[in-house]
């Protein structure tokens, strides 16, 4: 028994070390397109300041699109749509012409070559969503997936890209600003040119939840099997107070959804405690 407890505690310490060195300092989320395009304009898309909006229950981000011409083609206007929605593959378009976003253009010359037109296209505080709010019930095991399928057009007088796109987005970068989440960025294999950004809670929070659950169950068994019957009620009260304290520690006040899986676990443990205490105090043989 002693060896088992020692091994368990050592495993927990190792998990803490693993989390600190391998999970708390995530690498940048950058994906480069493997396809080579013959488009006149090439761009890099950045999702800056990605965070989970607690009030809207949606993902909020600033978007920056950097565009450059391959030749001396000018950049007068930009139409951009980051995501596709619904069965009809509809899109809402962000237009520099309609002042949805701020566009700046300038010329850039690299290595003494002929200057080319470059434009930056900034759209602050955009909400991206995939109907994720119901998943908060699984806190801290909730995660939020956003399929992003960007399209852009340059110098399209009609506004949206209704013809063939003349702009290729070659690189995609996401910077997660929400300290409670870690992000994973991948190419969307089912949609060429599409990406998937997944936000999930930090490993530490999930790990601590599991550890607390295991410790609580162990203590529950100990309380019922090894404890004195006379002291059972005060000890049970203390145990429940501890569970309540752990709940407040694990679930921050910013999580507005109730109940979460943590609440279910705590109430289930308390029910188990009550059941076991009842069975111990009133065994079957007793009239």
């Amino acid at each position, binding site marked *: 028994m002693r060896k088992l407890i020692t091994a368990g505690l050592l495993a927990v310490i190792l998990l803490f070390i693993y989390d600190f060195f391998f999970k708390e300092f995530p690498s940048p989320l950058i994906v480069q397109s493997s396809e080579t395009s013959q488009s006149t304009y090439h761009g890099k898309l950045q999702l800056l300041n990605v965070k989970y909006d607690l009030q809207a229950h949606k993902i909020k981000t600033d978007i920056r699109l950097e565009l450059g011409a391959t030749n001396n083609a000018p950049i007068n206007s930009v139409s951009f749509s980051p995501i596709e*929605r619904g069965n*009809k593959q509809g899109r809402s378009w*962000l237009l520099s012409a309609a002042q949805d976003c701020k566009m700046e253009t300038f010329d850039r010359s690299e290595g003494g070559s002929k200057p080319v037109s470059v434009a930056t296209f900034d759209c602050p505080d955009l909400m991206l*969503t995939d109907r994720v709010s119901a998943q908060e019930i699984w806190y801290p095991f909730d995660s939020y997936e956003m399929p992003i399928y960007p399209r852009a057009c340059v110098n399209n007088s*009609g506004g949206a890209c209704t013809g063939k796109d003349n702009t290729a987005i070659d690189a995609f970068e996401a910077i997660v600003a929400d300290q409670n989440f870690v992000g994973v960025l991948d190419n969307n294999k089912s949609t060429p040119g599409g990406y998937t950004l997944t936000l999930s809670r930090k490993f530490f929070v999930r790990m601590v939840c599991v550890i607390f659950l295991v410790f609580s169950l162990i203590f529950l068994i100990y309380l019922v099997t090894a404890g004195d019957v006379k002291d059972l009620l005060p000890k049970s009260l203390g145990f429940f107070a501890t569970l309540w304290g752990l709940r407040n520690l694990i679930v921050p006040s910013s*999580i507005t*959804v109730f109940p979460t899986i943590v609440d279910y676990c705590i109430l289930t443990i308390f029910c188990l405690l009550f059941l076991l205490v009842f069975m111990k105090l009133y065994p079957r043989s007793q009239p």
Partner: protein
Amino acid sequence: MKLVATMCFLFVAVSIALAQTSAGIVQTGTGASASASPAQKKSQSQPGATDGLKSKLPAENQDDPGTFRTQKMGRKAGSGKGLEGAIQNAVKSDEFTLQSGKEYKLGTTVNWPDDTRKDRIAIDYQVGSIDKKPAFVTVMVESKDAPKMAEDAEKLFGGKLSGPVHAEGLQTTMSACTGSRVCVETEKVGDRDVCVRWKCISKQVM
């Protein structure tokens, strides 16, 4: 037995306390939502992949098409005058209603042409502005007739429309679109993108 009763009471009390605490949290969240910007409210009320994005774009509101009255028009070959006239008639004969506090929409949906084929698509077209808010008319057209360029849209739907109109029971004045139209929303029909929303922008930002 007292112990059991105590435990029962404790369980019930703690459950109630837990529920009340969380209800308070939820209420706090709701209050915060209520104070959010109109754009945020809108994005919350319309589930969909681009809800929040829409809040950044010009207002849009797809009401249930079944609630619209419709006005049918025959096609006049080779000219957009027929549809333009139908839109003008619809604007004169019906009234605009404010949608989500951000835009006006005409109660009548204009059908063009008047036969009912399945490959029709609803296009929202901004005809002007009422109280500095965009005023839209919904036109049902065959998807192959949907305009691709701003010039085509203005040619088909009409360029300028102004004067007295009815908005929510009151007579008011609609200002004409002084700039040009741009497409702000598309849908896929077959393998091509069709613009389903044309908005007026001022010439200053073109």
